[in-house]
């Protein structure tokens, strides 16, 4: 079956531009996660949704980062006024249930954002 998909796969933005990154989770999955992976680092948690509710946004690095999942399926991560330090791969993951340790997270291929 279809896995987690993300679009675009690559995005180049000029400093100061706004960007929107899309995540299509596995159909029916309750939980959705966003991670940021800087070059040479492991993924770092950004935010977590259970259905349409954003239950944890403690990892968002600044108020320029905003995520939504209005209908409990597709999610969008928006970055306003992009800065060079925002350059990274943004990973989306979904899981079938509440996102606990026994609930496997399935990852998309990521969106590589480059801010010039």
């Amino acid at each position, binding site marked *: 079956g279809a896995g987690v998909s993300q679009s675009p796969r690559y995005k180049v933005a000029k400093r100061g531009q706004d960007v929107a990154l899309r995540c299509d989770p596995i159909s029916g999955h309750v939980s959705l996660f966003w991670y940021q992976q800087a070059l040479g680092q*492991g*993924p770092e948690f950004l935010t*977590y949704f259970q259905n349409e509710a954003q*239950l944890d946004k*403690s990892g968002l690095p600044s108020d320029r980062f905003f995520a939504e999942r209005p209908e409990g399926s597709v999610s969008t991560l928006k970055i306003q006024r992009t800065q060079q330090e925002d350059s990274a791969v943004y*990973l989306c*993951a979904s899981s079938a249930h509440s*996102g606990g340790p026994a609930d496997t997270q399935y990852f998309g291929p990521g969106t590589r954002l480059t801010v010039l």
Partner: protein
Amino acid sequence: AQSVTQLDSQVPVFEEAPVELRCNYSSSVSVYLFWYVQYPNQGLQLLLKYLSGSTLVKGINGFEAEFNKSQTSFHLRKPSVHISDTAEYFCAVFRSGNTPLVFGKGTRLSVIA
């Protein structure tokens, strides 16, 4: 806060040789431990996880890991590697009651023919 340390950033190994990728975690409470693999231009894929019970966990593609509470380690092993195992491997921890997975920095495994 919980954290994960992967002791080797790169591990080169010859094909059909055994390999061990090391992972240590810091925690004073129960943890749940994971190994993920990331192939080039692909998302992370779960290899195996330790939740409870037997400390020796078997995963996909012939990998296994052993949870050692006294040494706070969760090393990943494979007795004989293939070229196709070349990838980035991430250890991660999930502490009870805390939603996010916390990942290590990764170990790049390069299998040499």
